[in-house]
């Protein structure tokens, strides 16, 4: 047997994975009857449907006339395994980690960034990591500095980026974000870093 259509093969596996996860978790809830459906009824039916659709997709991939390699994008198993190990550790030791905010932040952050970095090109995880950083830095650093850092961090991802351009853009967008969201739209963002308050 040979995988003819790698896209269908992985898509089917992904569907089956999601279906199994939803189906298994749904078993914790009350099924009910057709007359009085419990919280588990509809998701279980959907999960079952999705599983068979996924199975059909994967089976089809062995007979497909469209041929695609089963390697669809770059995948780094070492990063992936590391992410899962650290993530599992963070999950089991959640209580202990919660005693130190910075430790928890570092462990969870490392796990997520490693997870992102296992897929695709470098630009993918850099972009997503910049987003996460912004989410965590907005409160301590304020909107203006966080936006500035976001643009610097993400602006240099593209191979065609130029440092000078990015810095000018970062300054402009930081001011623009402040004017639009805080002055114009009255959003409750911290503007100044928390240590300056």
């Amino acid at each position, binding site marked *: 047997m040979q995988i003819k259509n790698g896209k269908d093969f992985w898509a089917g596996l992904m569907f089956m994975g999601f279906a199994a996860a939803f189906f298994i978790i749904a078993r914790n809830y009350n099924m009910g009857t057709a007359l009085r459906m419990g919280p588990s009824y509809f998701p279980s039916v959907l999960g079952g449907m999705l599983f068979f659709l996924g199975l059909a997709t994967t089976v089809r991939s062995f007979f497909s006339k469209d041929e695609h390699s089963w390697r669809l994008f770059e995948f780094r198993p070492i990063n992936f395994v590391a992410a899962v190990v650290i993530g599992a550790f963070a999950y089991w030791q959640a209580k202990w980690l919660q005693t130190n905010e910075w430790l928890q932040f570092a462990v969870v952050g490392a796990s*997520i960034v490693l997870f992102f970095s296992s897929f695709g090109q470098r630009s993918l995880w850099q972009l997503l990591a910049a987003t996460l950083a912004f989410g965590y830095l907005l409160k301590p650093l304020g909107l203006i500095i966080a936006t500035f850092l976001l643009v610097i961090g993400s602006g240099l991802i593209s191979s065609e980026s130029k440092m000078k351009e990015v810095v000018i853009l*970062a300054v402009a967008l930081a001011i623009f974000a402040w004017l639009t969201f805080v002055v114009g739209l009255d959003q409750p963002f911290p503007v100044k870093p928390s240590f300056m308050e």
Partner: protein
Amino acid sequence: MELLNNLLLGFQVALTLQNMWYCFIGVLLGTLIGVLPGIGPLATIAMLLPITFTLPPTASLIMLAGIYYGAQYGGSTTAILVNIPGESSAAVTVLDGYQMARRGRAGPALGIAALGSVFAGSFATLVIAVLAPPLSEVALKFGPAEYFSLMVVGLIGAVVLARGSVLKAIAMVCLGLLFGMIGTDVNSGVARFTLGIPELSDGMGFITLAMGIFGYCEIIINLEKGEAREVFTSRIGSLLPTWDDMKYAAPAIMRGTLIGSFLGILPGGGALLSSFAAYAIEKNVTGDKSREKFGEGNIRGVAAPESANNAGAQTSFIPMLTLGIPSNVIMAMMVGAMMIQGIAPGPQVMNERPQLFWGLIASMWVGNVMLVILNMPMIGLWVSLLKVPYRILYPCILVFCVIGVYSINNNAFDAILTALFGLFGYILVKVEAEPAPMLLGYILGPLMEENLRRAMLLARGDFFVFFQRPISATLLVISILLLVFVLLPNIRKKRDVAFEADD
């Protein structure tokens, strides 16, 4: 007479200074993102949704609607001048539009696109005003069984619209419905599929989902591909088509408008489907033999799809406004926008909030007039925008995305979720599973479950109720026919390929 009164009411609302301002912002943004490839109305509406929370409901809907139909205008500019669609619905405009530009007729191509669009837009607005009230009346009589079947039709329609494999599209619908189940169950109060994460007890939030899958994913893919863009820089010349051109294109505009208006209403329809259908039909209409062939710069090849996508964009509001069922992803976003404002979309909106309902419809007329002004005299501005390289553009998009996401709940969790969906969207693109049906499923999931439960309660647990009630049965038969229909051309296509191989 009632129609006139209603429209009068609508214009009173739409022509207030505040609403005209938001309409202007909407169509301006729509044109902007329509012109710029790499960002579409979906991502834009997702970005702006959190902000609309602070606006009055009517103003926010007027603005978001303006983005959608405004993008149809902008998309044609890029299609004609750059040979790539600024908007997916302008994909067929590229074929003849760019050829016209290469033959020094960029001006008339842009002109006829704008004129066709404004005609189609005005006509479609009238269609909405005429069709919406009777449809709402019918919908008020719908029971839960009818609603459930209606949603089935809507979701199957989305599958028909999705490119590529039908099997995967149906699976994506199921996945979307399952994602919609995450959060607290309204009937029992059980927190479902939250994995113990308290932030998930209100559901995942469809802004994060849409932003990750459409906004982020697009940036990731574009960065991976690198930049390749060739702007047609020679003089555009006079925008006004000649009288001869107008006479030749007029029937195509009419046909495009009618096709678009019709296809927009159908479940799964909208701008995209309309423009493709209009172009396909136009190719088969025998015209003047002395004219350019299709694909070589025929002005009808620009006029028909551009009229159709505008008409389709607007009439796709009909199912959303009258039935509360979104027919495509953009309308799903509009449903989300209404829910943010505390309005349950459905047939009752027209009676309970006539100002909002008719104001939104009238604003489309206002918006179309603004768009002609924005697009005809100011075309030079948009063309110069096309020269902005992507390396400058994507940080700007990113800033709007992250600030928008953060402002929903003011916590970092939504940023993590959006990033995860960005990755998920990337994987979906790689395995060629269309994400649009998933988002539709996600929006309809809770509604579908609720109606299924009610229908079963009323029918004492008898599943055949869906086939016993005439409207419900008809709707289900339609969805089966739709599925058969979508499978047929695939079979034909495959056979065609086989025949070609024989030759």
